[in-house]
């Protein structure tokens, strides 16, 4: 049985990413047994939620994202900050809706693994490139950093070293490898990780297009295969419903796996209280 370690990095801005991480941790504890969760953050964690985490770790070497609205410049530090030899890394705006033990078993085959296949809420593979034009145009590996895995290894260490370099000099790297600001005018972890993978020529070692999972449901509005576009907010088209037993339905579809809700206002008191009630948190 593989060790089931989860890591998230959260930095609040106008949005409360720490609260998102707490909700994600509640979802992990609801569906997965014998897990360890690490939160990397400099922001305070509400005392009632501290028990959700086995480790709460400061972001090392200062805050490189201090002047950013979208704080991602510290993400490369995850490799160095974790107290684990291996971990799954997920975005904070995710819910883990099922036992994913078998995913961890699968990930033992890799030193570094990125999901490269994500799904709509209806369970269809997303082919739409609306949000990743640079990937197609510049032949970047189609990876998603929202769910990835690494074990402490030479490969992962070198990869994260490249990620540090790319993140700190993203304008230059994006210009050379991803079409520059025409395609991506802010630093993106997906683009940065894809560039690192391309430079290292390790695409075949870190993604596997032949497997359905590990993966996640990606709720960005424009990639749901809808004929009609209404807004960036997917809840304007389909409603979320969380039942008493914490089964999540989006529109007519029961959700399983990992749900990447993307819209911050998905998190509300009703959802938080439902998980708190289930876990006996007060």
């Amino acid at each position: 049985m593989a060790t089931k370690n989860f890591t998230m990095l959260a930095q609040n801005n106008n949005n409360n990413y720490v609260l998102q991480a707490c909700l994600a941790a509640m979802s992990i504890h609801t569906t997965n047994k014998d897990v360890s969760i690490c939160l990397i953050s400099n922001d305070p964690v509400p005392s009632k939620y501290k028990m959700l985490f086995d480790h709460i770790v400061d972001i090392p070497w200062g805050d490189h994202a201090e002047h950013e609205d979208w704080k991602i410049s510290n993400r490369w530090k995850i490799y160095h900050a974790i107290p684990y030899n291996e971990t799954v890394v997920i975005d904070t705006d995710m819910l883990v809706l099922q036992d994913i033990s078998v995913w961890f078993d699968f990930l033992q085959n890799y030193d570094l693994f990125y999901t490269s296949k994500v799904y709509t809420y209806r369970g269809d593979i997303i082919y739409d490139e609306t949000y990743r034009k640079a990937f197609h145009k510049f032949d970047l590996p189609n990876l998603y950093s929202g769910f990835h895995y690494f074990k402490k290894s030479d490969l992962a260490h070198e990869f994260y070293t490249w990620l540090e370099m790319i993140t700190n000099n993203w304008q230059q790297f994006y210009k050379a490898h991803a079409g520059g600001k025409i395609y991506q005018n802010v630093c993106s972890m997906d683009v940065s990780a894809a560039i690192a993978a391309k430079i290292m020529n390790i695409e075949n070692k870190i993604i596997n297009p032949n497997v359905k999972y590990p993966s996640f449901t990606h709720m960005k509005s424009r990639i749901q295969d809808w004929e009609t576009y209404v807004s960036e907010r997917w809840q304007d088209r389909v409603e979320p419903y969380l039942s008493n037993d914490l089964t999540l339905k989006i529109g007519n579809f029961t959700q399983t796996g990992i749900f990447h809700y993307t819209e911050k206002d998905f998190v509300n008191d009703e959802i938080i209280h439902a998980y708190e009630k289930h876990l006996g948190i007060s």
Partner: protein
Amino acid sequence: MSKGVLLFAFNNESLNYVKQANYLASRIKKYMNLPTSIVTDTDVEKEYASFDEVIKLDSVSMQNRRKYNDGSFHNRLLNFRNSGRETSYDLSPYSETIVMDTDFIICNDKLLNAFSSSSDFQCYKSSSHVGHKNSIPEFNRISDTSVEFYWATVLFFRKTPINKIFFDLVKHIKENYMHYRNVYQFKNTMYRNDFAFSIAIHIMNGFQKGDFATELPGNNLFSLDKDVLVDINEDVLQILVEKENRLGEYTGVKVSGSNIHIMNKFSLERVIDGN
């Protein structure tokens, strides 16, 4: 295990579905060598001798108006009496049944392979227009945000406890159709078997993608009601297919050896009548 085909035929003020069913039954006998039973509220005339069994119902009242096109320039608003499909399980005299629309034209025996499949419920999800239309959104999903579209045009089922539950579920959806219309986000208030079956399949799959319904053998070829069936000669059909965005302009298409769903029922009846 008894095998056969079940047809539902409820005439309206203009279209004779029993006549269509009789024509289809003769083709089923010819190409598939299967018996056909008909469910109807019409006294089936002696001239319609193709049926293995006539299951006569009391007059079925259903107000379900829809526009029937006959090519691009003619249409009529008629009563769409599409009731009964949900009772297939209860009414079929066979333990293994293929249910068909009466406007389905059998030209080969490929559907016989359904009987040798281990799947207890089969229908078409994929489909191809006989002409140029590659993708018609309304045949992909029942609404933009909702579930996949399954065709109720042709169904195969065995009489199993699970299928009993399934058909009871379709009945429930039909009885509460306006509720399911709201929940599944489609606008049209007219009852559609395709929609009720699509919703039921989705529920049987646990509100996810699943394999409760597997794909029937063969291709699900169709012509729209703005296309015009011109002739049927044995297994060769000639159809005028309306050109895309060219109202009233047609392309002649000849199809050989393929089963086809002819949605223009006026033209089908003209061909059956030999006009």
